[in-house]
C-alpha cells in the first residue's frame, strides 16, 4: 500500500513541476524578425499552442526550443526523466542529440523532412530504437507493427516505402516514428498544414487521443485556430516577434484581450 502511495506521490510531484522552463529567449534576424523576450513554463502532459501570422516568429521559437538553433540570449531548462535540470544550450551537442532522439520528438510540417523516404515504414519507425541500441530484429518488427496500427495505418504496409503513402499517412507515420521511443515532449510544426480538411480532422482526432493516452507535453505551432482549439490547453499569440497574449485556449479564443488576438479570432471564416 505504501509503495502505491509513494508512486502516486511521485506522479503528483512530477506533474506539479514544470518540464520546460524558458526565460528571456531571443533570436532576431532583423528588427522584429525572429522572436524576442519569450518566457513560459510547460508542465508534463500539457499542450501549448503557438499561434500567429506568417513571419511572426513561431517557427523560429520552435527551432530555438527544440535545440536546433542557438538563441542570441535567454535560457531553456529541461527537466530530464531522472529529475535533473539540463540547460539546453550549455549542454554538449551529444547530450542535445540524445535528448532529441529519446525524450523528445519533432514532427515536421512536411513529412518528407521528418521521414527517411528511401527506407521502408518499418525501418522509419525502428530507427530511434536502433539508435538507442535495440539490436533485436523481431523486437523492432513488433514495435513497427504495433505503431502502425496505433496510427491507423494497415500493418501489412510495414515494408512499403513512405513515398507510396498518401500525405495524411506520411504524417501519421512521422508521428509514429517520433512516439516509438516514448518521448515526454513533442514539438510539432504545423502538423496538419497541407492536408485536406477531412484528413486533417482524422489526424487531429488521432493526435488528441495519443497525446492524452501517452500523457505527452506538446508544443504545437499552427496558424489554424481550429487546430489550436482542438489540441491546445494553453495558447501563446505571437506578433512581430513578441508574445502579445497568452492564457488558456478557451479564454483567448472566446474573450481575446489584445487587439491583434481579437483580429485573429474574428478573421476565422464561419461556414
Amino acid at each position, binding site marked *: 500500500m505504501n509503495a502505491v502511495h509513494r508512486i502516486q506521490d511521485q506522479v503528483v510531484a512530477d506533474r506539479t513541476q514544470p518540464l520546460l522552463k524558458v526565460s528571456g529567449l531571443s533570436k532576431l534576424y532583423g528588427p522584429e524578425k525572429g522572436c524576442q523576450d519569450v518566457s513560459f513554463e510547460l508542465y508534463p502532459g500539457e499542450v501549448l499552442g503557438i499561434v500567429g501570422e506568417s513571419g511572426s516568429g513561431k517557427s523560429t521559437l520552435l527551432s530555438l526550443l527544440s535545440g536546433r538553433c542557438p538563441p542570441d540570449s535567454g535560457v531553456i531548462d529541461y527537466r530530464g526523466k531522472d529529475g535533473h535540470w539540463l540547460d539546453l544550450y550549455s549542454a554538449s*551537442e*551529444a547530450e542535445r*542529440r540524445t535528448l532529441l*532522439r529519446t525524450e523528445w520528438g519533432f514532427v515536421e510540417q512536411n513529412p518528407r523532412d521528418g521521414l*527517411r523516404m*528511401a*527506407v*521502408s515504414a*518499418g*525501418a522509419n519507425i*525502428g*530507427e*530511434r530504437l*536502433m*539508435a*538507442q541500441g535495440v*539490436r*533485436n*530484429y*523481431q523486437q*523492432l*518488427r513488433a514495435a513497427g507493427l504495433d505503431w502502425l496500427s496505433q496510427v491507423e495505418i494497415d500493418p501489412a504496409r*510495414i*515494408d512499403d516505402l513512405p513515398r507510396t503513402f498518401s500525405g495524411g499517412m506520411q504524417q501519421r507515420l512521422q508521428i509514429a516514428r517520433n512516439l516509438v521511443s516514448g518521448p515526454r515532449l513533442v514539438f510539432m510544426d504545423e502538423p496538419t498544414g497541407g492536408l485536406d480538411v477531412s484528413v486533417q480532422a482524422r489526424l487531429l482526432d488521432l493526435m488528441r487521443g495519443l497525446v492524452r493516452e501517452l500523457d505527452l507535453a506538446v508544443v504545437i505551432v499552427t496558424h489554424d485556430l481550429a487546430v489550436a482549439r482542438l489540441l491546445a490547453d494553453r495558447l501563446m499569440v505571437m506578433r512581430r516577434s513578441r508574445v502579445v497574449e497568452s492564457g488558456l485556449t478557451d479564454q483567448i479564443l472566446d474573450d481575446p484581450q489584445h487587439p491583434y488576438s481579437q483580429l485573429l479570432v474574428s478573421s476565422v471564416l464561419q461556414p
Partner: protein
Amino acid sequence: MNAATDPRQQPRAPRDEAYNFAYLDEQTKRMIRRGLLKAVAIPGYQVPFGGREMPLPYGWGTGGMQLTAAILGAEDVLKVIDQGADDTTNAVSIRRFFGRTAGVETTERTPEATIIQTRHRIPETPLHEGQIMVYQVPIPEPLRFIEPSETETRTMHALNDYGVMHVKLYEDIATFGHIATAYAYPVTVDERYVMDPSPIPKFDNPKLDMSPALMLFGAGREKRLYAVPPYTRVTSLDFEDHPFEVQKWAHTCAICGSRESFLDELILDDQGTQSFVCSDTDYCAQRVNEGRVAQ
C-alpha cells in the same frame, strides 16, 4: 621497357630515372605519411589528405596507389591484386607502374610480399606481422547511403551516432529475409568508429579482426584515408537474432579443390554450364603446386 612488363620473368625492373622514386614528389609523400600516422593513431577514423592526380582514372585505384607510393621503400616487395587475381588489367598495370617508377621487386606470392595493394579481396593465405595491406576504396563513408551531407556524417562519427547503420541491415532482412549486404559490409573498429572496409566481400571481414598486418585504406576521389593497426578488434554489425554470416558455397574450386576459399562463378558456354574457381589466384596456384587437385 618491354622487358620490365612481365614481373614473373624479371622481378626487379630497371627504374625509370625520369620520375621521382615511386612517382609522387617527396613533399606529397610526407603529407600522406602524416595523414597515415594520424589514421593509425585513431583506428577507423577518416583522415582527409591532399589527393594528387595520378596517371590513371578515378575508380582505378588512385587512392591506394598514392598510399603505396608514400610507404614504398627500395627494399619492399610489392604484390598487387584485383578481385583476388594477380593477372587482371588493374593489377598488372599498377604493378608495372611501381616496377617502372620505383624499381621495386614485385611478386605474386602472398607470404613474400611486404606491401599488398588490393581491390576487393584479402588474400586467403594468412598475413603475417610486418606486412601492409593497401586497399583501393571507392566510397570511404559508411554513412553516405543514408546521409548525403558530409558535415552531418562527420558530426555523426564524432558523436558516435550510428543508429542509422542498422537501418540498412533492417531493410535487408525486411526485403530478403536475411542480411543481403554482400560487400562493403560495415564494421566497428576498436569499438569506436564505424568503417566501410572498401568493397571486399563480407567473406573477408573476419580476416580484418585482430590481423597481424597493418591495413591502410585510400580513397582517391574522396581524398580520405583510414587505417586498422595490427591486432585491432574489428566487428561486423549485425542483429542478435540475425548474426553476421559469411558466404558459403556448395561447390569446391574446379582447379585446386579448395572448400575454404572465396569462389568465382564462371559461365563456360551458352547453355549456362557453371564452374567455380578460387578468386585468389596465388592461393589456388600454390595448392596445385602442393599437388592438390579437384576431385
